């Protein structure tokens, strides 16, 4: 079980800020494919992952990273702080 979080326009497109996901995905990219296969709104939200960033357990990571031992995955657009 992994906690998946969405922020900014990704959260709006998917329609929820977080959810628990039962998954055997090996990498972040595998998880994205599983989510995209679920429903149209996920497929649209994740259509272009180059426009997205990912954090694993609150550390910036990348889509090729393994999910073993990870409890929290967050997806979001490039950050606009400052």
């Amino acid at each position, binding site marked *: 079980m992994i906690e998946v979080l969405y922020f*900014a326009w990704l959260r709006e497109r998917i329609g929820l800020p977080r959810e628990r996901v039962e998954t055997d995905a090996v990498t972040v990219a595998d998880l994205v494919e599983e989510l995209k296969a679920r429903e149209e709104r996920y497929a649209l939200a994740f259509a272009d992952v180059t426009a997205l960033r990912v954090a694993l357990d609150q550390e910036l990571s990348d889509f090729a990273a393994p999910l073993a031992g990870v409890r929290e995955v*967050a997806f979001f657009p*490039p*950050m606009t702080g*400052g």
Partner: protein
Amino acid sequence: MQVRVQAGPFDYGAECAGFGQGGRDVGAVVTFLGVVRDDSGTLQRMEIEHYPGMTEKAIAAIVDKARLRWALADVLVIHRHGALHPGEAIMMVATAARHRVAAFEAAEFLMDYLKSRAPFWKKEFGPDGAEWVAAKDEDEDALGRW
């Protein structure tokens, strides 16, 4: 060293007063204030979303990175989230060092990294609706100089 992520306003003057001073090894204090700017002339408000938990950690990691690079006597970062109006203070950075070059460079470094490595997202609200602010290539490129 202090990092604060908060919804409410902060008093820039009060934060600056006394920051980094009092010791015998500080010769330079640099402070920066970020303010909500209205480029379109019709901005009603901005809403800043963040990732509670990661935000504080990401900023602390950025501060650590700066401290590895420059000998800093003190650092303060305050960043707000939630609804903000044009003219309101969004964030501030303060650095204290022995010499001004370190204080200036570290402040710029912190600003550059806060822009694209701290999990904040800005949404602008105007008369025609709301729009997420897109990250700029220049902001990403700015990291290249460090």
